[in-house]
Structures are given as C-alpha cells and as structure tokens.
C-alpha cells in the first residue's frame, strides 16, 4: 500500500506544540525588549559627558588667572566722536491675526470699557506698514569715556513706565541698568508689576495701589529682553531690557527709531529683536537682503554722520 504524495497536515498535537514554542520565543523577545527598554534611562538629549575631558577642563579652570589682566591691555580702536543712527522698520506682508485676550474678573469695567474685545498687542503695525516695538541695542563693550556728556547726565535718571486700562503702555521698554524705573499705575484699581530678568538684573514683583507708583532699580545689565507681567490681570504683558550703555531704541507706532550720540569710527554690534521672532535674523536693508545671525548687525558710523536705515521684514517671520 502506498500513500499518495499529498501535502499532509501535521497532527494537531504537533501544531499546538510548535505554537507553544513560538509563543515562548515571542515571550522571550518581549522580555528582552522590556529589559532593554528599562536600561535606557539616561537622557538621550545630550551625548554622555566624557570624564577625561572633564578632568582636563578641571585643570584649565583651576589655574590661577594671571594678575595682570591681559584682556584689558588689548589695543582697541578709539571712538572719534558721535553720529546718529535712525531709520524705519516696515512689515512686508500682512501681520498675523492677534488673539483675543481673556479679560475676566472684577475689573472688566476698567480693563475692557463697554465690554469691547481686547486683542493682544504683540504686533502693532502703523502707517504704511511701519512696524512698532522692534528693539535695537548695542552689545559691544563701551568704555565710559566714549559717552557723550548728555548721556552721562542721564545715567541715573528716573524713567517712567505706565499702565492704563490693564495694558502696559510700553509693550517693549529699554532702560539703562543704572537708571531708576518709576512704574506708574494710571488705573483706579490695583496692579502688580512682576519683572523677571534672566541673569544680572534684580527680579521685582510689587503691588502698586490704584493711581500710585513703585520704584525699581535693576542693578544689573541683561543681554536679552525679559517678560513683565501682572499677576492680578495675567493677560497683561510687556518686555523689558536693562542695558549698561545708552545706545538702544524701540521703534514707535509707525516703525521709526533714532539713536543719537552713538560713538563713531568704531565698529559696533547691535542686536535687532522683536518679541514674536525674538532675534531678527533676516531682513531687507535698503532693498538688499541681509543676514543677521542671532540678530547681530555690525555697523560703523562716521563722525557727525546721520545714517538712515530702511529695513523691511518679511511677515512670515512673525507667524
């Protein structure tokens, strides 16, 4: 008797047994994966630190720094006098739609008179596309003797920062770190001004009674703008920067700015900033596209010159 050569189903027992074996392997594989998964606890964001590099760094950082400060002796070009930098920022394209602010609570009658909707003023575009609240500031080291006497005189002046109808009247505000800020409250309700610098200026958070004021002395310079807010009305927002030199400006409602008495004959580094893109890295300057990495713009002005900058910014930067 011969058996026909046909494919045969394996006996049921064998099938079950092989399935069991397979499931064992799957279990084993799953267990392996779980174990391996459990191992990867370290942060994968940065590569692991190398101990021998750290040791070499420790040696470099422990060396006594020399008494004679060589960096101070570096030959530096001296300023030849003063010049004026002025200009205008324009927005090329239509600005993004600003969100409605969540104005709520007991103070609605003051903060949104007549129940009118209040929109964010993070971006303000004025006449002919002029862009307000662009900040320019010099980040180069400025020796004290380069300052014009008019700027020396105002080094410890008091400057005003006001709020009305639960809006900070300056959305972007720059001051010198040696000056005193008089924070006014022009509302018949209380506010508090919460200033949160990142590094060297002193933080501040004080209640300011109705129609009253508070004084703030920053005591330190900051390299980038930092937020200002009000805890009673959390939708209120502004930006501030404190600088060690007087060379900064914020564009007005139509995008114009002017920085007078800038040291001439030396290359100065400016930063260009707006709260939505932060550092402005690309622009069109007098029709020519320019790149400003991290907002850096280098410029050297001639004595007694008035340099006019016409800057156009693509609306895409602000989305």
């Amino acid at each position: 008797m011969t058996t026909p050569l046909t494919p045969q189903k394996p006996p049921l027992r064998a099938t079950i047994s092989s399935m069991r074996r397979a499931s064992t392997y799957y279990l084993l594989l799953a267990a392996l994966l779980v174990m391996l998964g459990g191992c990867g606890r370290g942060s994968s964001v940065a590569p692991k630190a190398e101990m021998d590099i750290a040791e070499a760094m420790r040696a470099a950082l422990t060396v006594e720094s020399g008494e004679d400060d060589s960096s101070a002796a570096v030959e530096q070009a001296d300023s030849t006098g003063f010049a004026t930098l002025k200009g205008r920022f324009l927005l090329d394209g239509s600005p993004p739609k600003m969100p409605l602010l969540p104005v709520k609570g007991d103070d609605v009658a003051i903060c949104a008179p007549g129940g009118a909707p209040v929109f964010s003023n993070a971006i303000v575009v004025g006449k002919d596309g002029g862009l307000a609240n662009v900040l320019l500031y010099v980040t180069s080291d400025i020796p004290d003797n380069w300052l014009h006497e008019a700027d020396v005189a105002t080094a410890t002046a008091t400057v005003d920062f006001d709020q009305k109808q639960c809006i900070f009247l300056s959305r972007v505000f720059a001051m010198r770190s040696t000056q005193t800020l008089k924070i006014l409250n022009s509302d018949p309700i209380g506010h508090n001004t919460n200033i949160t610098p990142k590094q060297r200026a002193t933080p501040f958070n004080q209640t300011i009674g109705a129609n009253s004021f508070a004084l703030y002395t920053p005591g330190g310079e900051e390299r980038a703008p930092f937020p200002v807010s009000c805890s009673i009305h959390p939708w209120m927002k502004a930006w501030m920067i404190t600088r060690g030199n007087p060379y900064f400006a914020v564009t007005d409602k139509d995008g114009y700015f002017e920085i007078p008495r800038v040291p001439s004959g030396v290359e100065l580094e400016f930063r260009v900033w707006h709260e939505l893109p932060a550092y402005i890295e690309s622009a069109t300057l007098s029709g020519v596209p320019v790149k400003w990495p991290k907002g850096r713009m280098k410029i050297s002005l001639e004595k007694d010159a008035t340099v006019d900058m016409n800057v156009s910014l693509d609306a895409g930067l602000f989305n």
Partner: protein
Amino acid sequence: MGRAWAAAVGVCLLLQAGCNSPEAAFHFNAVYAHKQSGVTKSQAKNVKEILIAQFGTPDEPAIPALPDLDVSTVISLDRLKMSAGPVERTDDTAPRRGLYREHCAHCHGVTGDGRGPTARFLNPYPRDYRRGTFKFKSTPVGGRPTHADLKRILVDGIPGTAMPSFKLLAADELESLIQYVKYLAIRGEVERSYILEIDAELEEEDLLLNVPGEDAEQVAEQVEVIQDITSMVLSRWANAAGQATEVPAHPVDDDKIASITRGRELFFGTTANCVKCHGDTALGDGQTTDYDEWTKEIDPTKPHLAAEYVALGAFSPRNIRPRNLRQGVYRGGRRPVDIYWRIKNGIEGTPMPAAPATLGSDDIWHLVDYVRSLPYEALSQARTSGPKFQRERN
C-alpha cells in the same frame, strides 16, 4: 519546553544584572535649553563636561575654584560628602553617606530638578532648585534664602504639601543637607547661565570651553567667562545672610480688634489689593488662572508649545492657586513673623507680590493680624434677628 523557559529566565536575569543600577548622573537641563532654542547637542555635552569639572558628580561632588571668591564660605566640600553618594549604612562607625538620596532624591531628583520618581504624583510638584528661587525665606525677591531659612524648611517641613519635617535628623546631618541643597541650586543656576550664554553669544559650531584645545588665548578668555558667571551666581548666595528683611516690632497698642479691623480694610482696599487673588471670602478663589515662574517657562498658555517641554521631561503645567486663608495652614510657617515676611516681600517665584512701599510696618502687622484671624472668622454673619422658625406649641 522547560529548557526554553529556563533559558528565557536566565537571559532575563543576565540582562537585569547589567542594568540594575546605572551610575547616578546629573541630568542636563534640556527643558531650559529648548526654551533658549540655540543649543546644539555638542554644546550640551560641553556644558555637562564643564559642570563635572566644576561641581563633580552625584557620587563625588566638587566645588568650583574661583580667583576672586572663596567658595568654601558658601558651601563646604567636607559637609557635602555626608549627603552625596549612594546610601551607605553598613557600619555605624564609618562616616554616613548618601543622605540626599536617602531622604530627598525620590521627590527632588538626584539633580535637584524636582523630578524624582514620585514627583509627578504630588501636588504641588516638588521644588526644582535649579532656578535658585525659593519661596519661603526672609530675604526680598531676588535675594537667595539665608541658611536659617533653608534650615527652617527642613526642620518644620512645608504644611499643606508633601514636604515633611526632618526634625529627627542629627544637627550635622541637617547641616550637610542644607549645604547640599545650596550646592544643587548653585550648580543648576550656573548651568542655566551657560545655556543663556551659548544662546546669546555662540555660533552653532562653537563651544563654551575648548578643552582639550590648542588655542591658549581662546581658552583663557573662555575660562574668564565661565568664572565670571560662576562667581556671579555664588556671590548671590554669599550675600544672602545680610539681606534678611528686618521685622519691626508689632505696634504696641494692645487693641487686637482695632488692628484686625484696620487689616480687614487694607485687605479689601485698592492699595494692598489682597482681595483680587485671595477672593472676597479669602478662600483663595479670586484670580486663579496664573502660573508660577517655573511653569511660565514652559509656555503653559500655549498647549502645543507646552507639549514639547513635557516631551523633554517637564511636568504638565498646573495653575497656581492663591492660598485659602481660612484653613489656617501656612506653607512658609505660621508664626506672625513668617506671615509678615510673606506679605512684606511677597513670595518669589509665584504671583504673590510684595506689599507696596507705601505700606508701613504697622499696616503690614495689621494685615498679619487680620490674616491670622481669618480661620476663626465666620464666613457669613449669623442672623441675630429675624423670623424664628419655631414650632408653636399648644
């Protein structure tokens, strides 16, 4: 069959042995680096290495060397050793080690980032020391807490939170832990400043410190920047002791009721504005939509941005609630002087502002008296006259 299982178990055990306890390491502050956006992976590695060079590792701490400041006046390496390292209690005669990991790390994390294994289940979340911001202290906003402030928190705990009291620890153990908390805070602040420095000044291919490297002049300049930042952070801690806000004596008159009444007027007035957040009933139900400063850094009002930070390890944002003043639970301590400091200086890192400068110490004491009376004041006044719902009896 049995053999396959045995093999499976065996392999698992082998793998387990390989990964049971990875060496403790400080985590990089990836959330803050993401905030500043301009930090590359190699720059992050560089920062980690600089921090190891200055501050060592969780098992072997170090303190940075600075030309212009004696760091041992702020933190003492000898004191740190008792808190650092793995928990060791094999021999009673040997010096203790690992106190921080025994008592603190499960909530505050080995790095002091407030992200220990139990942290996400707690409300409020444990403190992230790395901002150098501490709430309950005697110094004004911007000042670091004094040694005594930190000790008070360790000894008393923080009522109303998961932070317990460590009163049962020996004096030298407490001292070591206070120093270790300062050490982690300073390390974290320095790290944040390095991240800011990189974001503001360096191009993508540059490092904060090119060691090992050939350019000695460049290294000298970089070392100066690093030491300048480190000494800025350390000097804040060194100055804390002299910054405690003085508390003038309580006004002498003994009329407590008059003081409470005056305090109540101030509480509801437009000078002190307490009512705006603590609410008409002082139940803490006024302005409740704000966030603390730790949370504000992860853009809590923009969920799509917050999600990116959460993916990097930050905890889901929560609103901060003004304190319910009727419970009689005061996180920073219930002594009159504690409440005086909270009102006078505000609570750093939170929306609670300092009192206006126009309020004198007497007025602040009146507010303290009113706040302390609130848990005992009836929420509504009981009716003293009016219809009586009494059943008439025949």
